[in-house]
């Protein structure tokens, strides 16, 4: 009897493990709070909803714009007018046509109210008009180079006007069944288990998407996620899904491929805020000492298993206008000790706030603690969870606090916000948390955002980087690489600068 049960159970397990053809299983962690990309713009939401919603453009891995809902665009010679021609014959998932009225509504009304990040760019916009059903014109107040880079699915998703106009966006019942124009439609969401998307049969590109079903699997434990990939339950592990030591192991398995691409738009930049307002970190010498004392090559090679690039500037080397022409803080504990002495440090405890996102970050905090103790600083690593970490940054209750920020392709979009003195305000972990004040830098950032040519912008951003690296308000650490791990028979998964987030349009399974 026992044998019968075991055998039948075994048979069922084996039968169940093989997935239907043309189906892809991807891990999502943590479970997104919502799939309405216009209201919620966090990582998990974008991973799932990035194939439900679309924007006017997409970007390749060199950050060059490509057509999406817009087939062509023109920037006037004075760089003040952006004219987009929209694709004709596009329908929303409920069958209604997509037109320029939707674009104007999405940007001017909906996102202006709900999207904090886009609001910053919209400050430069004077007007948004639709001369006909398939043309949209953005008029700017002054030239704003980064503007061509904000037409991305997570930054400016197109929202159906006929569903949201005149309603309370946050409580609109359509939020539970998101309607977009994208290659995949929402089918079902078993909370705590999975989200199921199905192919949009009426998608405007012939033959796309190739996949029929996509399942986003919710698996809360990191080890379980690795197991899920190992025994075939999931096919794709987006960057950051498993701990670093598992990444190496999984990539070495047969039939497993990986890529570091697909993060160029975000360019996650790991750094540690240093409280410029109070404590030992308020002294520039102390901050320089921290930079010389911390061995970032070690962190990259040991804690990150070789993934990533040591950061040398507030701008990532993958972002436009990066400059290598800055002071280099090579690992030099002796120099660090000298600077520590010069700073007048008198032995008080310096608190390090680690990022509460897993073991790797915890070890990183401990590595920094070790480095700093070696040069004579008293260090305490603070215990925290996500909510506490958010709050401590927002309330400036830290000495050194780990974080990582996205760059969004252009220093005006992702970098300036951390260093502008106008961005100093309690209550958010995304502004100038360190409290750095430098009117010259403020002025340079303002000029660089609206400088009319790329050459001029580069000149200004180079100067900014030189000043910032010398003032070192923040301890830049690592340009993080989050490899996407997938089975080699999944093709064309990562072809854009946001990778898996909108890559399913083109992905297909090879036999």
């Amino acid at each position: 009897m026992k044998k019968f049960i075991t055998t039948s159970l075994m048979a069922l397990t084996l039968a169940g493990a093989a997935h239907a053809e043309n189906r892809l299983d991807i891990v999502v962690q943590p479970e997104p709070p919502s799939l309405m990309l216009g209201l919620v713009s966090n990582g998990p939401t974008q991973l799932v909803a990035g194939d439900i919603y679309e924007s006017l453009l997409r970007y390749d891995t060199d950050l060059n714009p490509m057509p999406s809902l817009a087939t062509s665009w023109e920037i006037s010679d004075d760089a003040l007018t952006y004219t987009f021609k929209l694709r004709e014959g596009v329908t929303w998932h409920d069958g209604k046509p997509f037109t320029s009225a939707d674009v104007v509504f999405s940007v001017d009304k909906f996102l202006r109210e709900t999207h904090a990040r886009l609001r910053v760019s919209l400050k430069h916009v004077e007007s948004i008009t639709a001369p006909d059903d398939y043309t949209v014109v953005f008029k700017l107040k002054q030239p704003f180079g980064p503007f061509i880079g904000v037409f991305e699915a997570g930054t400016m998703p197109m929202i159906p006007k006929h569903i949201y106009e005149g309603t309370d966006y946050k409580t609109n019942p359509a939020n539970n069944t998101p309607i977009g124009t994208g290659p995949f439609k929402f089918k079902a969401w078993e909370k705590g288990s999975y989200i199921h998307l199905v192919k949009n049969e009426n998608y405007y590109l012939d033959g796309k998407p190739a996949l029929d079903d996509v399942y986003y699997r919710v698996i809360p434990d990191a080890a379980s996620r690795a197991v899920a990939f190992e025994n075939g339950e999931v096919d794709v592990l987006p960057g950051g899904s498993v701990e670093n030591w598992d990444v190496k192991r999984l990539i070495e398995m047969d039939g497993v491929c990986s890529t570091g691409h697909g993060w160029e738009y975000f360019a996650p930049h790991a750094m540690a805020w240093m409280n410029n307002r109070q404590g030992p970190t308020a002294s520039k010498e102390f901050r320089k000492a921290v930079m010389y004392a911390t061995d970032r090559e070690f962190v990259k090679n040991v804690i990150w298993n070789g993934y990533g690039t040591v950061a040398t500037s507030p701008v990532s080397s993958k972002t436009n206008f990066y400059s290598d022409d800055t002071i280099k803080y090579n690992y030099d504990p002796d120099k660090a000790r000298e600077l520590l002495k010069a700073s007048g440090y008198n032995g008080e405890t310096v608190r390090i706030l680690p990022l509460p996102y897993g073991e790797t970050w915890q070890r990183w905090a401990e590595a920094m603690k070790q480095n700093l103790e070696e040069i004579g600083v008293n260090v305490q690593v603070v215990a925290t969870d996500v909510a506490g970490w958010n709050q401590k940054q927002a309330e400036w209750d830290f000495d050194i606090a780990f974080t990582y920020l996205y760059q969004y392709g252009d220093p005006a979009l992702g970098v300036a916000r951390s260093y502008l003195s106008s961005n100093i305000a309690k209550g958010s972990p995304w502004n100038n948390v360190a409290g750095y004040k430098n009117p010259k830098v403020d002025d340079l950032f303002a000029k660089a955002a609206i400088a009319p040519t790329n050459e001029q912008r580069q000149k200004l951003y180079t100067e900014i980087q030189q000043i910032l690296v010398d003032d070192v308000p923040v301890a830049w650490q690592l340009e993080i690489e989050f490899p996407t791990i997938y089975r080699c028979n999944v093709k064309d998964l990562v072809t854009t600068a946001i990778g898996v987030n909108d890559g399913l349009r083109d992905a297909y399974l090879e036999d």
Partner: protein
Amino acid sequence: MTIVTAISGRLLKAVITLLMIVILNFFLIHAAPGDPAAVMAGEAGAADAQYIAQLREQFGLDQPLLTQFWNYVSGILQLDLGYSYRQQMPVLDLILERLPATLILTLTAFGMSLILGIVFGLAAAARQGKWSDTIITSLSLLFYATPLFWVALMAVVLFSIKLGWFPAFGYETVGADYSGFRVVLDRLEHLVLPAFTLGLFFMAVYLRMTRSSVLEVSQMDFVKTARAKGLSENIIRRRHILRNALLPVVTLAGLQAGQLVGGAVLTETVFAWPGIGRLMFESLTARDYNTLLGVFLISAAMVILFNIMTDLVYRLIDPRIGAGGSS
């Protein structure tokens, strides 16, 4: 004291206890650093004062704490557990949706651990001192002492990865669209590892408790008397030893039954089981106050309920209890 008086007295105390728990939990949760707006803003990758103010207003956090408390308690009295902004649905619906998964897991584990624990405990007691007794008690000590999450992970490594007998995690085979009996089999298959993992610890507890209780009761005078009267070993074991020896086991079972709702956090997390325990932990991390309070409320209610039921079961087993007054 009649049974009706006993129950109504208990229920009144239960309501008061629940109320006090709600008050304590409410203020305790709000004392933790951060709030749901901070968490949502933190996940958004960008936030400004307007965004955070919008969130605070939406979540009702811009009102004074006492007002929030009053709103919450008035809601509870009308059986409205509030709205989860994180999950975008009413808390009661959310809990009812996740409750079955937890109950299937914990009831299975509970039943298994109770039955196996008692059976093996009796076996060990009957073979006291022999090598089979030593093996049973040593194994039970092993299961009792080993951390639950490690047992869970080792079970996955052995039974799922190496042997391929059972799925490594999850509640069901996703997207398989089974129907009828196939669904039942699928669920059972997914249930085995998590239920055993969760059950092994409690099985060890019941085993040792049963064993020592049986041994103690077997030494008592009334057992010797029964033997002297010439009763068969079977009847002695069933009517005299077992009924008395099981009293402490029933107490323990009653206490643990209260954990049927909230007690499987680790197991649910490792096995990606979509239950209440995991919901509670995730709500804590996200500072989803309403959901967290709702789960605590239901958990507390279960514990109180099972305490009352344990007392009632006691009366059935032991007629001396509840005789009240003079016996």
